C-alpha cells in the first residue's frame, strides 16, 4: 500500500529548486547512472509503446503483412464506442463481477486478518501459513481444482451443501455453479478467494501496527467489540483497504486466466463470463485485428485511469493517514 501513499504525498509536496554545486552535480550524475537502466526500460516498454499503441489504433493491419496496413482514422474508435455490442457487454460483465467479488474478497481478507491477529488464537503462525498457502498455487492449477470441486455431480461443494442443509444439490440438475448466469459470479468469487493471501497479510501487518493504547482507552470506555472495530480498527487499516481496492479494480480489468481456462473465452453461460480482457485477447490474438486490439487496450487504459483518479479523489474523505508523517 505504501507506494500509493507516496503518490498521495508527492501531490502535496513540492521540493525546493536549488542550483547544483559541484558535489551535487557529482551526486546527480551517479544518481542518473544508477537509475539509467530503469529510464531506458521505461522508454522502451512503457513510453514508446503507449504512444505507438495510440497510433496503432488508427490502423487496420496484420503483423505478417504490414505493407497492407490501412489507415482507418477513428474507425476503430467508432467501432468500439458505437458498433461493437461486445465491448459494452464485456464492460458490464467486468464491473458486475467487480461489484460482487471485490467487496467479498476485501471483507473476507479483513475478517480473516482480524481472526488471525486475535490473541486468543492458538498456533497463530501455523494458521497464517496455511491460509496463505493457496495463494502459492499456480493460477491455472487453482482454477482447475475449483472447477472440479464446483462440479455439480462429482464436486464436494454440492455434496457438502446437500449434507449440511439436507437439500437436493447434487447431480446435473443440482446447483450448477459454473453454468448458472447468476451463480457463476459467486463461483468466480469463490475461486478468487484463493488469491486473497496477500490481502490477508497486508491487513494483518496493518492491524499489528495499530497502537494498543487506542484499544486500552476504548476498553476503559466499555466500548463493544463492534464499536472498537468500526471506530478504531477500520479507520486505522483504511490505507490497506484503499490499496486493495485500487489494485483490485485494476486487476479485475485484466481478469483473464479464470474465464479463459474455464470457458476458452466463450462467455459461458450466456456471455456472463465474457470479460473485457477476453474481448481484447480474442480481437487482438484470436481474430488478429491488431489495430482494433490496440484500441480496446487504450480504452482499458482510459477506464483504469478514470477509476484511479476517482478513487484517489475520494480517498481524502475516508482513508486515514497517520497524521502526515513529517
Amino acid at each position: 500500500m505504501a507506494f500509493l501513499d507516496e503518490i498521495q504525498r508527492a501531490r502535496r509536496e513540492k521540493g525546493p529548486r536549488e542550483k547544483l554545486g559541484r558535489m551535487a552535480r557529482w551526486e546527480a550524475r551517479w544518481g542518473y547512472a544508477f537509475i539509467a537502466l530503469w529510464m531506458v526500460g521505461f522508454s522502451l516498454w512503457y513510453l514508446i509503446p503507449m504512444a505507438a499503441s495510440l497510433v496503432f489504433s488508427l490502423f487496420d493491419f496484420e503483423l505478417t503483412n504490414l505493407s497492407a496496413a490501412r489507415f482507418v482514422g477513428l474507425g476503430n474508435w467508432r467501432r468500439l464506442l458505437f458498433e461493437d455490442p461486445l465491448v459494452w457487454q464485456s464492460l458490464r460483465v467486468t464491473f458486475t463481477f467487480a461489484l460482487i467479488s471485490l467487496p467479498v474478497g476485501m471483507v473476507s481478507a479483513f475478517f480473516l486478518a482480524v481472526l488471525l491477529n486475535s490473541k486468543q488464537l492458538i498456533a497463530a503462525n501455523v494458521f497464517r501459513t496455511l491460509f496463505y498457502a493457496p495463494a502459492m498455487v499456480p493460477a491455472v492449477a487453482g482454477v482447475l481444482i475449483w472447477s472440479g470441486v464446483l462440479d455439480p455431480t462429482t464436486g464436494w461443494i454440492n455434496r457438502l451443501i446437500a449434507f449440511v442443509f439436507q437439500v437436493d444439490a447434487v447431480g446435473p440438475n443440482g446447483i450448477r455453479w459454473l453454468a448458472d448466469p447468476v451463480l457463476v459470479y459467486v463461483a468466480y468469487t469463490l475461486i478468487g478467494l484463493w488469491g486473497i493471501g496477500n490481502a490477508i497479510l497486508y491487513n494483518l501487518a496493518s492491524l499489528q501496527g495499530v497502537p494498543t493504547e487506542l484499544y486500552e482507552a476504548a476498553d476503559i470506555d466499555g466500548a463493544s467489540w463492534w464499536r472498537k472495530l468500526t471506530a478504531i480498527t477500520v479507520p486505522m487499516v483504511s490505507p490497506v483497504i484503499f490499496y486493495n481496492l485500487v489494485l483490485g479494480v485494476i486487476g479485475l480489468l485484466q481478469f483473464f486466466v479464470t474465464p479463459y481456462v474455464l470457458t476458452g473465452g466463450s462467455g459461458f453461460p450466456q456471455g456472463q463470463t465474457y470479460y473485457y480482457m477476453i474481448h481484447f485477447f480474442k480481437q487482438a490474438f484470436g481474430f488478429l485485428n491488431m489495430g482494433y486490439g490496440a484500441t480496446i487496450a487504450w480504452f482499458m487504459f482510459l477506464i483504469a485511469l478514470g477509476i484511479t483518479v476517482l478513487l484517489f479523489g475520494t480517498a481524502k474523505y475516508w482513508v486515514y493517514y497517520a497524521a502526515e508523517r513529517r
Partner: protein
Amino acid sequence: MRKLAALLALLAVLGMATAQTQVRWFVGLGAGTDEPLFVAQRAIVDEFNASQSDVRLVLEIVDNNQAYDVLATQIAAGNAPDIVGPMGIRGGAAFPGVWLDLEPLVESTGYDLSDFDPEMVEFYRTDDGLIGLPFAVFPSYLSYNKALFDEAGLAYPPAAYGEPYVDANGVEHVWDVDKMTELALMLTVDGSGADATEPDFDINNVVQWGFGIMWRDIRGRLSLFGAGNFIDDDGNATMPDHWRTGLSWYQDAMWQQGFYPNGPYGNSALLGDGNWFDSGNLAMAQTQLWYAGCCMFSVAGKNDFDFAAMPSYEGQVTATVNADTFSITRASRNPEAAFAALSFLLSPEVAGRLNALYGGMPARLSLQDAYFDAFEERNFPGRNLNWEVVAAGLSYPDVPNHEAGLPAFREAEDRYNAFTQRLDNEPDFDLATEIDRLVAELQLIFDAARARN
C-alpha cells in the same frame, strides 16, 4: 547458480542438436487430438526421424478447442507450423489464404497423385491452387449400444440403408427421425428406472439417454434434417426452414422429452464429461468414423455395440461427412523439406497406419479394400462390426458440407456457437426471437467482412 549454469549449457546443447532442417507438424484441426492416439503418432514421427538425417519432424498436438486460437497466434507471429493435418473442412475454411499451393511441389518432385480418389483431389483444387493432399474421409452412421436395447427389450435399428425398422413383434416401420425418436424415448431412463414414455418419468433425474450427437456444432447436428448453411446464394445470412424445424426438435428433445442430453447432462460425469456414447449411458449416437478410432474404448470393454443406418427425414437420408487433408502453410520456411515429410506421412504404408489410427477411410484407392479389416483388427478384434453400413453412409453426404466456410469464419462461428450454447443450457430459451437475432448478427459480421475485403 551452478545448477542454473548447467541448465543453460544443456539448453545450448539442445539448440545445437536442432541444426537439421526442422519441420513442424501441427495436429489439432481434425482427428488426432485424443489421448489414445498420442503415443502412436509420436512413434510415426520417431520413425521418420530415424529414417533420414536431413529433416527433423516435430509433432505438436493441440486440443481441437484450443487449436484455432493457437494456430492463429502462430500464424500471426510468423511462427506458422509447416504441416497441418489431418485437417477437417472447417479447419481449412477457418484459415483462408494460409495454405500453400502444392501443385509446383507435386510437379517438381514427380509426386504420383494417381492413387488418390480423383474426386477428392479435385475437392482440394481451389482458387488458391491445390491446397492439400487428400488423406481420409469419415462417413457418419448410427452407433448403438446393444446392451441398452436388450435391457429395454427393443429390436436393433436397421443394419443397412433402405431397410425398414423391424420391431420386436416383427412389424415393419419406416426408419425415419420420428421412429428413431420413439425408440429414443423408450431408451431414456430416470434414476428410478422409469422410461421417458411413462407418466412418472422424472426429466430432472435422467441417467440414460436415447439419442445424441457429440462434438459437432449446430450445423452438423441440424444436418440430421438435411444439409444447409447459414448463408444463402446472395451471401446473406439465413436460417433454412428445415433447420428451423430441426432446432425445435432439438429444443423439445432436450427440455420437454428429455431423450437428448442437454448442456448440464452432457457435460456431467454421467455422460463421460462429454464423451457420451463411451459412458455406456447413451443408446444411440450419430458418430463419424473418427469416433471409432479415438473414443469408444471404454464402452467397447463394457458393452456390446454395433453400427446401423441413419434415419431419413422426409424421405431423405443425410449422413454428414468429414474429410481430412494434409496441407503445408504458405509461411513454411522449408516447403521442400515439409513436402518430403508430407510424402512420408501420406505414403501408402504410413498413411495406411495413420488411417487405421484415426479411423479415416483412406483417400488412397490402393488402401481402401483392406482398410476396415485392419481397422477392426487394431481396435475391436473379433467384434465383426457392421462396416458396410458405415461405408454406405458416403452415398448420403451433406451438400453443402456442415463445415463449409462462411465470411469472417471464426467470428461467425463464435456467434452461432454462443447461440447453441444457450439452446443447450437454457430451458426457456426463446427460440423464435433468438433465431432472428442470430441471423441479424451474422448479417452484421458478413457485411463487415465484405467491407474489409
